[in-house]
């Protein structure tokens, strides 16, 4: 069940949750959270089941640098 979590919760999950940046590869290459995978949003349905484990929480994020 998806839920919104804040910065402190994400920080506490570093190193064990599966972080997924859903922006395009160029943005991911510039900067991303430590250990995050890059699965662009439009590929999530296809690649998610192939690349993500089902027994570990997934944290999907993007960012606003504008």
């Amino acid at each position, binding site marked *: 069940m998806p839920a919104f979590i804040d*910065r402190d919760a994400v920080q506490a999950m570093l190193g064990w949750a599966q972080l997924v940046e859903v922006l395009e590869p160029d943005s991911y290459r*510039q*900067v*991303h959270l430590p250990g995050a995978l890059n699965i662009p949003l439009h590929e999530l349905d296809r690649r998610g089941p192939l690349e993500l484990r089902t027994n570990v929480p997934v944290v999907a994020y993007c*960012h606003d*640098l504008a």
Partner: protein
Amino acid sequence: MDWMINGLPLEGDAAGAPRAIDAVSAIPACQFDVTLSEARAAMESHTGCVVVNDSGIVVGLLRAPDADGRQPVTEAMRPGPATFRPGVAADELAQHLREHDLDHALLTTAEGRLVGVATRPALESLARPPDAN
């Protein structure tokens, strides 16, 4: 964004590059419902202040020369100033300020809450290579 403002770790090609937040300095702020004279007092030696609402959201800018009288600040402020996110690369923001002949940039969160101000000299200093003159 909240992650960057709090100096938390990042990875990637530009993870170590200077960002606008690295050049931030404080700027006086006043509530939107104070008078011009009250706002002037809050400015002290600064040339202006940011006007915020009761949620801390930026609503305008007020220049010191305009801050005189008993009218509410909303009558003299410049509403809806341009704002920038603290995570913007320092060199990109410095270039933007040069191109638009601006000397500072107001930094806010994505929700519009005031973070501070970054001056063009401070941004250019960050963007300059360490061994440049």
